[in-house]
């Protein structure tokens, strides 16, 4: 889900090359006109494993994993791993330095007291970063998300490292994928902005985590989001608040709010039952209200929320495990693990951009 849009900043520059009209273009330029990139239209039939790979002709795409982990003492940790692909031109991937794709990796670990984030940039076409099928591998430098089995998402290895942290996790799941929105067509605004979007919310992760030289053996639920688009935001949209929640009941909730410069935010979500059945949540079915703000990186961030979905008898409060989960990268945003209290306790991840 989430962050990825940032990537767009890169998209921005492409469009940004014609320095005319420095009009606001949505967060990180994601509201840019899609030029001749492939448009996102309803009714596309997904095909796996091909759709796990990169999609030529689309401007942006990402492979995005979060995990809510606990060590043997029950301490909470969060892990994020993201690979963005940003095409500078709507052309097929080409080998060599003439390739017009930039790859961007974000990785972070969060504990109650510490948050470390790192990023990697690479050009496509030479092997420094990319996504390959059979066996599936998404990588940038020595960060990777790679399949250990024939079935791409059944048994995965996830790793990243930087100066102050590292993690090596094994992610397994035997459950089917979840197509978000309308069979994978996920709308982002009333004007029809959309992306193709599927998830695997049922991963179980285990492995080790190093923070500032300390090693922890950890395990917990993880969530994969895959999304690609050519223009997911309108120029009017300034950022979003995005939730992926693992409820102890075995159910999962994904919901997001697109904030607009004018007018009410665009709010939508998906209810994923324990058996994988999904139900799209419309704006009027959801109540999403910030409850508390904290000053993070010199700006007020809503780090505690109240969420109610009366149809599902859900009435919870979602609170950041570490309020300072600021991703201080070239494109900065807030992203970290959250704890859920109320009718449906559990845990999850929250991403907030455009603040």
């Amino acid at each position, binding site marked *: 889900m989430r962050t990825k849009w940032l990537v767009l*900043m*890169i998209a921005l*520059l*492409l469009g*940004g*090359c014609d320095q005319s009209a420095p009009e606001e273009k949505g967060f990180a330029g994601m509201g840019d006109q899609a030029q001749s990139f492939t448009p996102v239209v309803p009714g596309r039939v997904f095909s796996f494993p091909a759709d796990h790979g990169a999609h030529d002709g689309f401007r942006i795409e990402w492979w995005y994993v979060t995990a809510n982990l606990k060590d043997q003492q029950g301490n909470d940790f969060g892990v994020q791993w993201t690979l963005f692909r940003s095409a*500078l*031109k709507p052309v097929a991937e080409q080998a*060599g*330095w*003439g390739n*017009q794709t*930039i790859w961007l990796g974000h990785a972070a670990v969060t504990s109650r007291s510490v948050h470390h984030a790192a990023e990697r*940039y*690479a*050009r496509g076409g*030479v*092997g*420094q970063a990319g996504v390959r099928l059979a066996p599936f591998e998404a*990588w940038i*430098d*020595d960060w990777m998300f790679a399949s250990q089995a024939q079935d791409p998402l059944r048994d995965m290895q996830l790793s990243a*490292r930087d100066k102050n942290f590292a993690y090596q996790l094994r992610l397994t799941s035997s459950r089917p994928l979840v197509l978000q929105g309308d069979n994978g067509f996920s709308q982002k605004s009333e004007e029809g902005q959309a992306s193709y979007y599927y998830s695997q919310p049922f991963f179980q992760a285990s492995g080790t985590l190093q923070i500032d030289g300390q090693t922890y053996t950890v395990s917990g639920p993880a969530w994969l989001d895959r999304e690609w688009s050519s223009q997911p935001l309108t120029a009017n949209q300034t950022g979003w608040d995005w939730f992926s929640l693992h409820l102890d009941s075995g159910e999962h909730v994904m919901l997001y709010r697109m904030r607009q410069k004018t007018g009410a935010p665009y709010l939508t979500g998906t209810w994923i039952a324990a058996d994988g059945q999904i139900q799209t949540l419309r704006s009027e079915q959801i109540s999403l209200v910030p409850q508390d703000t904290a000053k993070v990186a010199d700006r007020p961030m809503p780090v505690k929320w109240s969420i109610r979905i009366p149809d599902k008898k859900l009435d919870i409060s979602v609170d950041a495990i570490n309020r300072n989960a600021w991703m201080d990268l*070239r494109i900065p945003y807030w992203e970290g693990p959250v704890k859920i209290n109320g009718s449906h306790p559990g845990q999850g991840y929250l991403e907030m951009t455009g603040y």
Partner: protein
Amino acid sequence: MIWRQTLRALLSHWRRHPVQFFSVLTGLWLATSLLTGVEALNSQARDSYARASQMIGGEPQASLSTPNGALFPQRWFIELRRQGWPVSPVLQGRLTLKGQEDQRIQVMGIEPVSLPSDSAVAGQAMPIERIVEFFSPPGSTWISLDTMQMLGLREGDTPRTVNGQTLPPLLAQKDMAPGLLLVDIGVAQRLLEQPEQLSRLLLPKDFHQELPASFNDRLQLKSSGEENNLERLTESFHLNLDALGFLSFLVGLFIVHAAIGLALEQRRGLLRTLRACGVSARMLIACLVVELGVLALIGGLFGVISGYWLASVLLPDVAASLRGLYGAEVAGQLRLSPWWWFSGIGLSLLGALLAGANSLLRAARLPLLAVADPQAWHQQYSRWLRRQGWLATALLTIALAALIWGDSLSSGFVLMAGLLLGAALALPVLLSALLNPLLGRSRSVLGQWFLADCRQQLPALSLALMALLLALAANIGAGSMTAGFRQTFNDWLEQRLSAELYINPANPAQAREMHSWLRQQPNVTAVLPNWQVSVTLQGWPADVYGIIDHSYYRQHWPLLDSSGSDPWGKLATDDAVMLSEQLARRLKVKPGEHLNVPTPNGTWSPRIVGIYADYGNPKGHVLISSEHLLRGWPQLTPNRFNLRIDPAQIPALLNALQARFALDDNRIVDQARLKGWSVQVFERTFAATAALNSLTLAVAGVALFISLLTQSQSRLSQLAPLWALGVTRKQLMLLNLGQTWLLAVLTLLLALPLGIALAWCLDAVINVQAFGWRLPLRVFPLQLLQLMGLALLATLLASAWPLYSLYRTQPADLLRTFAHED
């Protein structure tokens, strides 16, 4: 009020003596212009080095490269990145643009996305927009404005290479290193026709980690300090320029000193009158200081302007020698900071103060009621001479001490400065000592007057003669050193470059194939492969060459020093090395001792069996047997083949080579071309030195001219009595010329041994310290004769105008001098 009046009275002197006024100005002007000119050249070069080393990230970068500097596959970059090494690839090479076939321009390809984050490139911050613009087609070629203009190109142009490749549009960048084209790595691989090849991998400065084992013998780390060798290697070159600049400064100050001293002498009466009128000594001095300061400002201004001009005229030669000698690019257009202009004028002020200090001191001590008494003044002069004699002795002692105990370039310059200044100061003492016995022996009256008057002229002329001595000695010294070096260098080239053909294979695979192919060619009488590795020996960059045992080396590789018999045999069979003279001096090692060579398997300590000359190479040069080299670096392939072949067979072999390996032209070099290059580099190196040298001689000529001119005005009163006694004006003129020539010839005679001593200092001390090689002292009599002739001509020209005006003096003027006598 008194201030103004006093100043006015003092300044009126210059109105009446414009020649003196211009002498002071000329002295200051010459002193400042040569020194600031040289400083401009040096600072320009240093700025260019700094720019080149700070291209990426604003500071010299640590990097990984192959041991022999060869290109390596791009795959290694990916492998290292995938092992977590934050490396960024660079490909560097040279290309020739269509229409500019006479120069090869450096190209640097970088990959801006993988550069350490926040790395500025050529002083430009690299936000992602600029990065994308840089590498997305059409991309851009960053170039310094200066280089773009030199190539006659404009922003947005897309020049073509001789191979038909088109460059991305040019974009001028303020802080680009000169002579360099910066492009994306992909573009560089295309332009240089090196697909998927890299020359280095840059590392962030704070990254320290052991290289993965699989790369251990493939790549080696160069720390950021080593990258900055250029500054170190070129240091001595710039020091030499500095020395020439200071010499000229000194000569210029002699002129100023002479002119100011004379002006003071002539104003003694005025100063006394002013003091008698109630002007305090302090105010008088203040006025004189102000006067001097204004003169210095004007002279300094002219000096800085012409220094700028001089630098811009010499810059192409200096840049060419730096490029030829060190591969260093220097911007062809002067860029000087305001600081340079101020320091130039400051230099002039300081120089004027230094040159005038003595006169000011004398003015301050001027006894109020003392009568002008030439005889008393002469006595004072002999006291002065004695003191000068002592000073000269002290300076020569310092020079001697520097010779015995000195062991650095600075001590070499102390030696030279002590020798030159000591000799210059000793000159009037010596001349006076020479004239005295002659005077005693002279029988004729006119002869006695001739010599006595000569001695009388000494004080006024001595400074000009000292300048002449210095300039002549410097010319003899530098001339004999340059000519000697040229001869030594040519002999050495003749011997060393005796293979007919030199071939550089394009890559390791080709090297292997070529080696066996060449060995099968019946026309090639000998194939001498070279393997090469770059290492750092005790902080000095050096190239280690692996060679095979062949009689060629015994015949054509002269050794300066060796240990034991058959050093070449030992080199082939024992743990032995030979090394270049400059490296041996730098490391302070001798034959018989051991050298520590770092290899991937640890340190290897072979014995030194020979030392050979390697003129003109700023890097160290080491020879070892190829077996030893390949034991340390087994993956190496030959980087060059030297071929012995009958010259008549060369075209046929070249055709076969081209047909088989499709080598590009600059990979095949024949002997004549190589010699041509070497000689060209040499000539350009000394072009700037020669130009500066003749300028010093010119300055000395001007000094002599001005001294004679100022002197001639005060000479009338001494010549008038002779005229009254019946000596004709023509005779007087000839007598005068004879006097000047006598002094000049004596000075020249003294300049000869001094010049040869200086040449020895340059050959055996300065060259050794600056470049690491000692040259045999060679004296070229013809050159000396030429120089002497030139000096006499200069003296003649310098005395022409004063003599002419003497000749034209009206009898009435001569008579009037009697009326003025008080």
